[in-house]
């Protein structure tokens, strides 16, 4: 049995966590996607690596305790198990531009159910085309056509994490599991990147590619589990928070292209309240 906790990530800049090298299509660098909903994710190992590196920079000397001791060559049994485990972060709400709204936060039942499970919120049925928040008309116009808003669902308010900025400013909307990938792809931030030769106006070899990234204002969630008892007694959630030096929230960087301002996020951690 593990102690349950979870994290909420709000992107403050475009976020590009790439699919594995070799999976680019042409020179478009894709983001890592979930296989079923085809929406962006941050693999657990990327989150773990960033958390671990940040803790290392804090120089508390607790890194090996929390993340496990690496093997020492020619020494038997030198490894220890990590006390903290991460799984991938999936989208809870993705902001989509929409004329005269101007932003709608969109999600689908599969993504919201994962959020519900991780955070231990009460079971709820998520109906496609139900919405919550201010609307200007009863149909929305996305690039792909008109989308009729059906029923207002006030309970959706509880599924917008409390710590995010402009929490109640935008309409939130649920679409079908089969439609989210199309809307998600429409919402992605895309950029062509090129480096020119030093002395003539042409692209350097290999330095011309397109990149896609999750837009700023994307809300994601990931589970985080803590062993109940470690090598030296009980593992305390508060101690982890303390060693990690995260008070209310923390700015963290994930993924690539940090040098051009990608990847800045605000992360908050919560222990799950057991019912």
């Amino acid at each position, binding site marked *: *049995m*593990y102690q349950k906790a979870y994290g909420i990530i709000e992107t403050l800049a475009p976020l590009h966590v790439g699919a594995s*090298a070799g999976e680019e299509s042409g020179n478009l660098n894709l983001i890592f996607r979930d296989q079923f*909903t085809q929406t962006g994710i941050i693999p*657990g190992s990327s989150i773990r690596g960033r958390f671990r*590196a940040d803790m290392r920079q804090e120089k508390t000397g607790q890194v090996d305790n929390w993340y496990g001791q690496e093997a020492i060559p020619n020494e038997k049994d030198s490894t220890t198990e990590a006390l903290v485990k991460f*799984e991938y972060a999936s989208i809870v709400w993705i902001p989509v531009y929409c004329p005269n709204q101007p932003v709608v936060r969109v999600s689908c039942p599969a993504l919201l159910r994962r959020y519900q499970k991780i955070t231990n919120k009460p079971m709820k049925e998520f109906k496609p085309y139900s919405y919550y928040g201010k609307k200007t008309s009863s149909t929305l116009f996305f690039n792909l056509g008109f989308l009729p808003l059906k029923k207002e669902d006030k309970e959706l308010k509880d599924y917008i994490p409390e710590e995010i900025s402009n929490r109640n400013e935008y309409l939130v909307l649920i679409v079908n599991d089969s439609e989210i990938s199309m809307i998600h792809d429409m919402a992605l931030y895309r950029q062509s990147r090129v480096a020119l030769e030093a002395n003539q106006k042409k692209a350097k070899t290999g330095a011309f590619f397109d990149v896609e990234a999750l837009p700023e204002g994307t809300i994601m969630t990931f*589970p985080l589990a803590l062993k109940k008892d470690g090598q030296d007694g009980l593992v305390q959630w508060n101690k982890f928070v303390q060693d990690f030096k995260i008070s209310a929230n923390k700015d963290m960087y994930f993924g690539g292209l*940090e040098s051009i301002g990608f990847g800045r996020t605000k992360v908050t951690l919560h222990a799950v309240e057991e019912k």
Partner: protein
Amino acid sequence: MNNVTYNLKYLTIIEPLGFLYGSAGRFLSPENLVGRSGAKFPPSSTTLSGVFAANLNDDERKKLCVAGPFWGKTERVHEEQNFYVPTPLNYLVKNGQIQHKLHWDDQKKGWYDEEGNEPADKFDKSTWIPINQWDNPTTVESPPWRFTPHLHPRLAQDQRRVYIEDEDTPAEDKKGSLFLENAVEMSPDTCLVYLSSQALESGWYRFGGEGHMVEITCIELNHYLQNLLKQPIENQLALITPAVWGSNRLSYRYPVHNQKEKSITPTQQTSDTEYVWNTKTIFTSRAHPFRYRFGNHEDPTRPKLLSRGRYAVPAGTVYVLEDSLSQSWLEWDESWFPREGVSFKRWGCGLALPIKSLQTSG
């Protein structure tokens, strides 16, 4: 022989919180990352047995019995305890439909369909049928998981790029920088299902490799499933879990009487009396490797030795016997199962359900 009464009372439901670990099999090496013929998912019952063993005391552990793997649609499993088991191999599936149900013909010594033909076609492999239609399956499902291999590059400690080794790298840091994990993602709203004799406290557990986390809940079996497991098996049965038969060393396709280990070499044909069942025929496919490792209670950081590598008859295998067994799997004699420390019955080996004789008159 200390005969333990094995029982299966609970449905253990495993919902992944993220990815799961899927073994890519034996043919994977740094030079060859594409051979997938040995890919293995879902984890066998021994994997779950380890989770139980770590959370039970000694007495409870002795009575432990786990069988699987199966999978289900989470809502359906919780509501009506309906989950999916491997399709018996004599049901030929194409395009998600059962096209033919073959039966064994005693006179012609062969498997024939309803019209007495031998279908010559390609049929789907690894399909699953719902357990609540066991007696007369009509729907067929394909597995709801996808392999998602991805790289975990090792980054340099002081800069954000892959750690690059050169001549100056100290020997202890030469570990390679790219690690490929063969992860599996299950479709949302599906879960893995196992049968077990005990229940675990609901919560988050580590399950399988790479430290992946799952949520485990246990519910008591309903009457339908209890009765199905107690149904006596007459002379036709289908395995719903892989079965290791044989002595402590050699794997067979049929249960053998486990006496004291005799030195049987495979070339020495043993007489038929060694076999427990008098088998008319068996409908099977390629054997699967079956191997496990016990955990170590004294020192959890140091695992015990790997068990002997065995071969298992795959789930879905159909046996036609001369004589009726008149016993359900739960009542089968423990001496039919190999033992290595514990009886293989503990891993739900060869969990079988009766299938109706499909023989048409004439």
